[in-house]
């Protein structure tokens, strides 16, 4: 079927965001948006995880309790 892409052995398809050996194209998609890469390359790309890190904001909840009359010795 023209709207199904099946990667050859040792390869996966990717559109830069998603990796899979079988792609069943939706009506808005095209085979031109997908290309084959090796499984090893796909693993490397997927292992690059850059989660964001945030600092806890303590002031909000301390202030909230202090508004209720709870006091703390620092």
């Amino acid at each position, binding site marked *: 079927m023209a*709207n199904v892409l099946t990667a050859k052995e040792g390869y996966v*398809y990717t*559109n830069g*965001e*998603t*990796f*899979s*050996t*079988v*792609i*069943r*194209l*939706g*009506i*808005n*998609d*095209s085979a031109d*948006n997908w290309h084959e890469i090796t499984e090893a390359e796909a693993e490397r790309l997927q292992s690059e*995880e850059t*989660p*964001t*890190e*945030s*600092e*806890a*904001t*303590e002031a*909000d*909840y*301390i*202030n*909230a*309790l202090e*508004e*209720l009359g*709870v006091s*703390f*010795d620092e």
Partner: protein
Amino acid sequence: MSLVTLKTKVEQLIDLAEWEKVWYEASANLKNVEGLFRAYKGVTIPRTNFINTTTINNLCGDNNGDGCTIEYIDYYLNTSKASQAGYVFRMCRNLKWMVGFNTANLVNAMGMFFSCSRLETIQEPFDFSKVTNTNNTFSNCTALKDIKFVSETIKVSINFSYCKMLTLESVQSIFDGLATVTTAQTLTLNANTKILQSQVDVANAKGWTIAGGTIVSEEEYYG
């Protein structure tokens, strides 16, 4: 001052029942609860009123996975105003089940359950109608079985490739959750997730590309 220290101080002042009441009343004032339970060591988070909270990024999430030890959340989080839930439960490795939380105004679902490797069940359906960021939302959720979505609310690409334990009901709910889209969006499933050609056909017609999954006969699908 960490939340653990804060709780210790409050417990010195009043008994536990009062603490929980004070906490619930106080938490209604909170708008940003980033990192609030990051270091929490209980089996479940204290009953918290998120009624005015707009940001729950990293609520329990921790980059190292050594922080929040919760195993379940047995009440529905009233996070109706929250637009940000980035990494809200990141690496909560003990988390097994939850009732769920209100996502009606959620925009950022990035990494919500990143590496919640024991999470099996989320009881209440998610409304993803305003969500625009689903990067790593379910990455490494290898034990996830039960999840539901409000019908036709998923509008951007979403990835369940790590979720190899999804029930048939969950898979159907995911397909039902797909909205009709006008640009190419992709639903990614685990390679071994059983799906029907009919499910793929409906999704394709709505504009969704389906990556992964294994098409089986109805006989095999329903056993």
